């Protein structure tokens, strides 16, 4: 929101405007099609016919420039980690991150013995919601997105925090 952000006093008008802004943000969570491993297939299946993520206003975009939400679906290796940072930086604000599955949460199966895997995507970018599962069921991912929507609704944009 640029110059107006965090500047306005709390009153009925501005809180309503804030609510409206949040509502529009939450209802158009365009997620980046960013799948690295197994969870990517579940992400695809969540977006496809049976679970139909479009119902939540979440549509996939192929580029970070058009997306609000990055669903980190799958293992992030050290070789990939720099790219993830770059992709995150390329996304316009406000931006959110969901860590989907054990690999993105903590490194999951590769936590103990692998030398090449980043142990949790939160080591390089901030994460809003952690969705457990290996891979999570599509329902679980949708629940994670709903949880993120709840959090977006609580946020204050224009009003002073």
């Amino acid at each position, binding site marked *: 929101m640029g110059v107006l952000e965090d500047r306005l006093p709390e009153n009925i008008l501005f809180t309503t405007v804030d609510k409206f802004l949040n509502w529009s943000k939450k209802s158009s969570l365009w997620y980046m099609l960013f799948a690295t491993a197994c969870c990517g297939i579940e992400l695809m299946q969540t977006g496809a016919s049976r679970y139909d993520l479009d119902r939540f206003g979440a549509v996939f975009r192929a580029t970070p420039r058009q997306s609000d939400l990055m669903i980190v679906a799958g293992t992030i290796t050290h070789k990939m980690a720099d790219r993830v940072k770059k992709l995150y930086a390329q996304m316009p604000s406000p931006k959110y991150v969901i860590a989907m599955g054990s690999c993105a949460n903590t490194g999951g199966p590769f936590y103990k013995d692998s030398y090449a895997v*980043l142990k949790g995507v939160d080591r390089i970018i901030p994460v809003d919601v952690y969705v457990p599962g290996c891979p999570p069921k599509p329902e679980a991912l949708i629940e994670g997105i709903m949880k993120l929507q709840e959090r977006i609704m609580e946020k204050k944009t224009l009003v002073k925090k």
Partner: protein
Amino acid sequence: MDAKQIYQTLSEKFTGRIKQFQENTHPASVVVESDAIVDICSFLKRETELEFTSMISLSGVDLKDQGKMLVIYHLGSIRHKHKIALKVELDRNNPHVPTVEKVWPGANWYEREAYDLYGIVFDNHSDLRRILLPDDWEGWPMRKDYVYPKRYHTWDV
């Protein structure tokens, strides 16, 4: 042709360069001199009775206790439906072996992989770079004495 016959054919053709025949592995393997590997491979590919049309796989093995490294070539023939493994023993401190990329172009990537993970140098290889790990990675991770790094770039491993 079964493995024993292949071994006999090879030992007749390449006297003194075939070291050993191991029957108890599956498929049976022939240990050969490392500098003869290209000749042997092209012979195996061209000879009509053998015709090993494709290299199935190439693996490096670290035998730390014996101070050796192995390169194992699994070869298969589509026409004759036989398989064999060729083994080359290398010095662990300075593993060098000629490339078989000219015989089977598919070997290119397998050799890069063995270089990446074990540090085995394939002489005369056209493009010997790391393939799986980042270029600035240090060490040969599949070796038995590899110590996991603590940090990479700006984050903890």
